[in-house]
């Protein structure tokens, strides 16, 4: 099934329709978009000629005669018909070409083809070429795009038409373990860079004929496939249309992964909160699809994009659903605490110590004061210093090759933590605060969200240093107004916290009993509202 659909869009390219009238609109959009691509501008109007040699020269010239463009000329056996295949060595599968195209045409053609076969073309397609997919083409743009994608072009002397035969080679790594979103109980598979495998990973988890793959080609130069995936009878059609509209109205040079695409189609490009969810987990993607969300895959990107997204959804992890609902809720609440700590703890510490030491118990005040006695920097500067250090450490540990990565943690932990305190540059309490903040940010499952908390941390620290707790609470108020205003594909970012709906809240804020979650969260306006039967387990049928 997956292969069929895949084949279909390999050949048809952009013309895949959803069957609705908006499919028509998107097709028009794509038409105009295609005109702007490299292929469209240059080669749209160039057609094949009847002369084989001219055709070969034209095509090779169009691709600048690069060394990896291979041409094999041959004769259909026993006949005076010359033919040639053109392909790019590095992206086409040469074995397939030899076995399924050249071999049958050169060796077996004599058994089948008459010299004056009027339906030579039909014979070749239907009786000879055993490759997966064959298409008849005549204009240069299609041919070049196909060759660039790894397909093979078969050209025959005397015809102003040719064949595109699918021979794409997929070089990519194996399905690996999730690195960014590890899970204890969840599946240990993550998306790879090959879109075909990725679709397979989703298909394997969701055998639903209503699962729709809507294919687009994106990028003036890259022309990579972007696949919009949704379950037709669950996903809200308005959201699906909006996603398709935004993708097809894009006129960009190209994107290479899901997050990049997300930034192009997000509602507010200035929002520091990620209004789309990037995941490398097929199981999370499938869960999102079943919630009525839309997934987007990009060829060459090892992540899926899930939209729309809300803040509570970003705090969820797949592990929540593999545990008892009480345990799951505790896990999730601890993540909310982590989110809070990561955003506000340094600010609150600065505010309390430099403005309102009266809010702390006496002994604690004396302990903190004792640890800070003789410190050269005020608390605020100290916090900024540590914040910068942590940010650099985190960045360094990502950038460094894994082999030397150990050094970072040793240097960071020992030098910054221990030595700075002993040298009397940074107070030990500040080290604890910084460490807690970092740990808090690591609990957030969404990497972009955890970066967002870092972005709001420093403004809050400034507010705390100038205005104390008053400033922090004012800042929180403004932040709340701001995030309440954010929307992700028409869905409010803080739904279902506001507008309030208790039954949705039960499933998102805390983890609910899997068996009691009969209805889908209503805030995505799903089509099929019920997830499972309402009947209690063990209810007899005879009743």
């Amino acid at each position, binding site marked *: 099934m997956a292969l069929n659909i895949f084949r279909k869009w390999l050949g048809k390219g952009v013309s895949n329709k959803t069957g609705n009238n908006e499919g028509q609109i998107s097709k028009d959009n794509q038409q105009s978009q295609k005109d702007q691509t490299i292929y469209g501008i240059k080669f749209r109007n160039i057609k094949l000629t009847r002369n084989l040699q001219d055709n070969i020269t034209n095509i090779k010239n169009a691709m600048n005669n690069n060394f990896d463009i291979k041409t094999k000329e041959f004769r259909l056996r026993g006949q005076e018909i010359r033919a040639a295949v053109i392909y790019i060595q590095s992206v086409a599968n040469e074995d397939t070409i030899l076995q399924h195209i050249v071999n049958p045409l050169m060796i077996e053609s004599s058994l089948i083809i008459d010299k004056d076969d009027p339906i030579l073309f039909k014979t070749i397609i239907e009786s000879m070429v055993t490759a997966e997919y064959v298409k008849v083409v005549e204009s240069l743009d299609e041919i070049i795009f196909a060759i660039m994608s790894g397909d093979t072009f078969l050209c025959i002397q005397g015809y102003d038409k040719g064949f595109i035969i699918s021979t794409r080679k997929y070089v990519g790594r194996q399905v690996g373990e999730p690195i960014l979103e590890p899970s204890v109980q969840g599946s240990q598979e993550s998306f790879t860079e090959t879109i075909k495998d990725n679709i397979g990973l989703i298909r394997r988890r969701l055998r639903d004929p209503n699962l729709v793959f809507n294919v687009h080609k994106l990028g003036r130069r890259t022309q990579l496939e972007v696949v919009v995936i949704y379950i037709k009878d669950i996903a809200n059609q308005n959201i699906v249309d909006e996603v398709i509209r935004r993708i097809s109205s894009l006129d960009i040079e190209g994107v290479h992964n899901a997050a990049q695409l997300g930034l192009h189609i997000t509602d507010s490009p200035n929002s520091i909160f990620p209004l789309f969810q990037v995941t490398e987990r097929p199981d999370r993607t499938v869960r999102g699809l079943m919630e009525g969300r839309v997934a987007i895959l990009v060829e060459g990107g090892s992540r899926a994009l899930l939209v729309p997204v809300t803040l509570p959804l970003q705090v969820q992890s797949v592990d929540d659903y593999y545990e008892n609902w009480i345990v799951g809720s505790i896990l999730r609440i601890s993540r909310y605490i982590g989110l809070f700590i990561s955003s506000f703890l340094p600010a609150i510490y600065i505010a309390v110590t*430099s403005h309102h*030491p*009266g809010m702390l118990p*006496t002994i604690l*005040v004396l302990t*903190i004061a*004792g640890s800070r006695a003789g410190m050269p920097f005020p608390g605020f500067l100290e916090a900024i210093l540590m914040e910068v250090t942590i940010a650099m450490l985190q960045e360094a540990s990502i950038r460094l090759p894994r082999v030397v990565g150990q050094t970072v943690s040793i240097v960071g932990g020992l030098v910054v933590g221990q030595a700075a305190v002993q040298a009397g540059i940074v107070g030990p309490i500040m080290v604890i605060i910084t460490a807690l903040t970092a740990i808090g940010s690591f609990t957030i499952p969404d990497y972009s969200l955890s970066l967002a908390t870092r972005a709001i941390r420093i403004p809050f620290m400034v507010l705390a240093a100038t205005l104390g707790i008053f*400033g922090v609470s004012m800042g929180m108020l403004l932040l709340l107004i701001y995030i309440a205003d954010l929307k992700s594909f028409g869905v409010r970012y803080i739904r279902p916290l506001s507008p309030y709906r208790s039954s949705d809240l039960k499933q998102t804020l805390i983890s609910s009993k899997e068996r009691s979650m009969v209805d889908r969260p209503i805030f995505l306006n799903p089509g099929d509202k019920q997830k499972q039967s309402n009947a209690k387990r063990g209810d007899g049928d005879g009743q």
Partner: protein
Amino acid sequence: MKKLKLSIIILLISVCLLIFTGCWDRKDIEDRGYVLGIAVDSYTPNDSQAKGDEEKKQEFEETQTAIGEPLYEMTVQLPIIKRSPSLAASGAGSSDGQPKTWQITQTGNDFISMEREMESRTSLTLYYEHLQVLILSDKVLKDGLNNMIDFFLRHREMRTSVSLFVAEGSAKKILDVVPQEEDHSSTYLFELPINADKNARIAYKHNLGEAMNCLRSGDAFILPRVEASKDEIKITGGALIKDGKMAGWADELDIEVINILADEYKGGTVVGRLSGHDEGIIVMEVTDSKTKVTPIIKDGELSFDVDVKVKGKYAEQVGVTSGGRVDKEYIKECEKEFARTIERRCRITIEKMQKEYNVDVFQLSRKVRTQKPAYWEEVKDQWDEIFPNLDINVRADVTIQLIGVMK
């Protein structure tokens, strides 16, 4: 247009934030001097015997007064927060033998000037939100609490939870105590009354807020009295305050009775003597108690019924040979004896307060005011004449719930 509007709003909010907030007093936590305790003495002229450094110090303590002569001596206690290299990682602490607190004394006739004068002697900004105890000397109290308490009530940083204590003689000496366990005498003193639920001889309410209430309503009250040795402080009885002035001392047994009548009898022991056991005494440990004070007006005469319901454990017997048999009758007998003891104790103290001091420390005036307002309107000006002759009937009812574990 919409963006312009938004940016104007944001600008307005941020300007308002900056202008209308009182939070500009940013000061790092280690730059503040945390005043843990204050002692107030009445002014005594300098001892001319002092020599050298001592003399200089006394010179510092004198504040030049603009008007009038110095009346008071205020001592504040600051913790010494030192960062020693060896303890850098473990935070606060100073090595043994060195003082852990610093007492700054200043004289003057108003407290705010004294406080400001102290600021010229310390590099820290004095900060009172962690003030725990306020110790007043009896001389100051005899001059009148009303006269001097205003600074402490008005100060923005002082809280109503500050504990008040009275010291006989010098209040400053209490702060000079170097306690065995705590680092600072103020925290030590602050935590002493924690055991009030084990020992009924500690006055129950003694914080600034409560004192302020009583001063405003004109009710009499007690403040715990403290005495100090070199390294120990003890709460011994209390000072009776009437009309903002000290009227006398109450001993520890009096405090117990005052607590009983205030329905704050949280613990402690009752000792009784059974007939037939000449030397022996029996002891009860109070676990729970409920006191109801009812004003009764009969033929225009006011009297009070005090019902004390005490529950407790039979805790100990000394010199009693009950033969190890503790049966129902024996317990009944004990209960009666304990009730008699409580009633007797109450009578003694009530009479002492009525006749000797004429201080309504039981705050009976409050009961009349709230429960018989019409009558109170008639008598409120003559309460001093009425109180000593009041008929106060104490009835105690003791229940022994447990008799302990016999091995």
